[in-house]
């Protein structure tokens, strides 16, 4: 059990506030100033963002809960216009190249395709690094955190889409509508080129409707298993026919000739429905609000909401016009979000582990290829989720394999040691491995500057260093015996040199506790 810095103030300290919703009498009431301390502010920074050093936590403590939450939620006020990847725009020569490939000899064509695929792979690596940089040092952490939520929710993989521009475009869509309206997001995603390719909607026509998107949009995106029938799937697939993708223009296209104009019966209603109608029917269902709000809560709180809390979340969402921003504000200000069973009980995702670690270690992200290796080894490859359900997350991030990888990859971030990734990555693809090894051995990962992290006193006195490690790395206290192990380790070194301090950080990062946030 982790020992928190300060005990929570009892609930009866709560000041009565204006209550408009009946439900909120009991659920989602506002956290009080008395409870707003280092632990609570660190929790908000870890969950609404990707964590950060003690100075950032202190700043949030000083702001108070409403201002601190507003800093995350009202991110439009913060200017943010970093450049997009150079190739993140429609390719004017694409049509010509497709034509050239069509006219080429089989051998030439194969060469051209190989070349194109190689480019795409490189671009995907750049894209991953581009996004990780936004998470690690961008000015709008919640926007990136929600973008990551949507990527896991509408899990689309470059392995099938095979086009970095389209993957970037989808990512940009998630970012633009990150905390916006649910229906708007859903329609945009249904018309998103990467999604149209990913779930085969692009090829669905009235003669043979493809059920892939129709099924997953109900099962995984809006309602959940058991809230629709097989008949709903086949009928919805008919309604969606004609929504397709134009390869030349690299854009969504509506093909009237492919659309099934007949009557369909979906959720017991009969009509001449098209894709837009179907998505509107989906969002109008009460289950849709419960499903998506429960998933958002689980993503940020780390545990599924109770039935009662789900009702309250869904009501908040509907009262806010099915927009995510008011929901998130209410969530981050709620007593429930700061309950002791929620704080420091979420397993960090590999991306959270990497981005959070570089933030608390105040070091830059490693080079792109190394970032890809680090997260892949831990079981999360951005833009390549294992399937359309996304990453299972939670405890399933942790196996003996991935846990040891986390412990070892700490050395990559601290001391620039790339051996944890050169061995594991592509273990199953020997040829790719050789090439990867060659390339990784040429990059410099860099390490951590301990002078930046700790005061001189902390760097020379173990009794000062240990609490500093607690505040920076765990935002909680070590168990007494862990503290003893660390102290013994530091005492056993010849003086508190940089190497010893880095190793002490490595040891903290190699504990079960560090894997939680």
């Amino acid at each position, binding site marked *: 059990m982790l020992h928190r810095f300060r005990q929570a103030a009892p609930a009866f300290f709560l000041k009565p506030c204006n209550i408009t919703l009946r439900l909120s009498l009991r659920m989602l009431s506002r956290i009080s100033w008395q409870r707003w301390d280092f632990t609570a502010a660190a929790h908000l920074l870890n969950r609404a963002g990707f964590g950060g050093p003690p100075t950032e936590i202190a700043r949030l403590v000083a702001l108070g809960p409403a201002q601190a939450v507003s800093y995350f939620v009202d991110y439009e006020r913060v200017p943010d216009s970093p450049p997009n990847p150079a190739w993140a725009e429609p390719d004017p020569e694409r049509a010509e190249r497709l034509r050239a490939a069509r006219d080429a000899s089989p051998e030439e064509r194969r060469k051209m395709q190989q070349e194109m695929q190689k480019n795409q792979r490189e671009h995907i690596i750049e894209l991953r690094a581009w996004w990780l940089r936004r998470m690690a040092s961008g000015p709008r952490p919640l926007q990136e955190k929600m973008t990551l939520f949507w990527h896991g929710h509408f899990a689309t993989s470059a392995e099938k889409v095979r086009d970095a521009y389209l993957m970037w475009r989808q990512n940009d869509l998630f970012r633009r509508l990150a905390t916006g309206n649910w229906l708007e997001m859903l329609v945009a995603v249904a018309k998103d080129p990467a999604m149209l390719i990913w779930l085969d909607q692009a090829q669905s026509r009235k003669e043979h409707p493809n059920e892939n998107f129709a099924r997953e949009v109900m*099962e995984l995106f809006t309602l959940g298993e058991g809230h629709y029938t097989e008949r709903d799937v086949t009928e919805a697939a008919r309604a969606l026919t004609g929504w397709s993708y134009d390869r030349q223009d690299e854009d969504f296209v509506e093909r009237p000739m492919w659309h099934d104009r007949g009557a369909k019966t979906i959720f017991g209603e009969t009509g001449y429905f098209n894709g837009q109608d179907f998505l509107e029917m989906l969002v109008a269902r009460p289950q849709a609000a419960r499903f998506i709000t429960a998933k958002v809560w689980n993503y940020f709180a780390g545990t599924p909401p109770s039935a009662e809390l789900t009702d309250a979340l869904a009501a908040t969402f509907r009262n806010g016009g099915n927009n995510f921003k008011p929901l998130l504000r209410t969530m981050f200000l709620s007593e429930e979000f700061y309950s002791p069973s929620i704080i420091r009980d979420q397993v960090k995702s590999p991306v959270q582990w990497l981005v959070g670690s570089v933030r608390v270690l105040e070091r830059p992200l490693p080079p792109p290829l190394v970032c890809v290796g680090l997260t892949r080894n831990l079981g999360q490859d951005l833009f390549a989720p294992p399937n359309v359900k996304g990453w299972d997350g939670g405890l399933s991030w942790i*196996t*003996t394999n991935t846990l040891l990888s986390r412990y070892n990859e700490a*050395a990559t971030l601290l001391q620039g040691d790339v051996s944890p990734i050169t*061995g*594991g990555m592509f273990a199953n693809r020997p040829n790719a491995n050789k090439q990867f090894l060659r390339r990784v051995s040429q990059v410099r990962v860099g390490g951590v500057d301990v002078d930046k992290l700790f005061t001189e006193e902390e760097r020379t006195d173990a009794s000062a260093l240990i609490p500093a490690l607690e505040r920076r790395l765990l935002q909680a206290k070590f168990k007494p015996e862990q503290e003893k192990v660390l102290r013994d*380790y530091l005492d056993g070194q010849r003086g508190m040199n940089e190497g010893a301090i880095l190793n002490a950080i490595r040891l903290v990062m190699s504990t079960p506790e560090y894997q939680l946030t």
Partner: protein
Amino acid sequence: MKDEITIQTRREFLRHTVLAGALSWTVPTFVANTFSALQADAADQTTQTTTGRDGTILVVLQMAGGNDGLNTVVPFTNDYYHRARPRIGLAESKVLRVNSDVGLHPALTGFKDLYDAGRLAIVQGVGYPNPNRSHFRSTEIWQTASDSARFERYGWLGRYFDNACSGCDPTVGVCIGRQMPEAFTAKQPTGVSLDNPQNYRFMAGGQSRPGQPTSMEDSFRKLNQPEAETPENSGGTIAALSGPVRHSGSALDFLERTALDAQVSSDKIRSIASRVDNLAAYPGSQLGNSLKLVAKLIGGGLPTRVFYVSQGGYDTHTNQTNTQERLLKDLGDSVSAFVEDMKGQRNLPRVLVMTFSEFGRRVAENANGGTDHGAAAPMFVIGDKVKAGLLGQYPSLAPADLFQGDLKFNVDFRSVYAAVLESWLKTRSEPILGRRFTPLQIV
């Protein structure tokens, strides 16, 4: 391998620390449970001991994505088959004939050889009532051996571990990969996962001085051992700690347990992997490499009862022909290399391979040269002691016999599991599967 083996098994770990009091540890919930299990061990005849030298081994091979069973075990004389699949159907001249009516996909030469050698059983028409066509739900049904409408908390192999292997070494279940399959989910989490033995350890780096009391390695091990003694639950009352305490079932509990399992298994696995050589040539694919590692671990005597490997990519909604051919070739070649390896090690009589996929695919092909999610499909069971040949009945393809365009099952997959549990792993199947399923006569 010169590495010092610090902890051999969890059992030994507990003896040295909890029992002998080398260090005074107490016990988070999971260790308490393991400990109670150990105490009960001697009296409990159902608990299986694993020595790594005898005992049977099950290798579960998941074909993820929903393999098209109709083009895997092909009813090549069936008119309905050819009518439903004008583009992707396989002609009689192409298939590898098993009898006068069915044949294997042409890429499955590896399986054909195993069949001819009497080592391959094909179970036809396997499924379950009220089939679910979602990848995730159907996979879950197979992994938890549940009824279609019922949600089970633990996996079927997890329940096997809970029922028959409590107190065993964590390597009683080994998954090759980075994620644990849902089938392994257990009341007491059991099993380890790995893909590269060389990195399967805490790498202390250049600054460490192993052997010294304050080396990184030693500090690491101490930091990753269970919580130290606290006054409220001291030594004598351990066995009474049935289900306490404040962090029972917390994420931290789970992490501590995994950290311990990783340490316990790491030295052993690396030592085996560096000392055992493969005795067959495997394809360079992920599946090939996974089975290669399984073969080494078996050869090195890891006390494992269940290995889990998987191969993905079977979700062939579009242009199925090339994809499935590539995957099935990889499957057949990898498994036959593994059998060759086992034969060379003289371990083949101890090993059984069982394949499964979450569902078959629709009888009729779709407009994109592919097939959509379906229902019943064949399973393969491979080993020296299988009743080789065709088992079960091929489901009827007559349109009137289909359910929503899909094949109806004849064999419940749980009667295959029951056979594997009873005849192969030698344990009662009811406590694991929840009720009686008549075991299919496979071994």
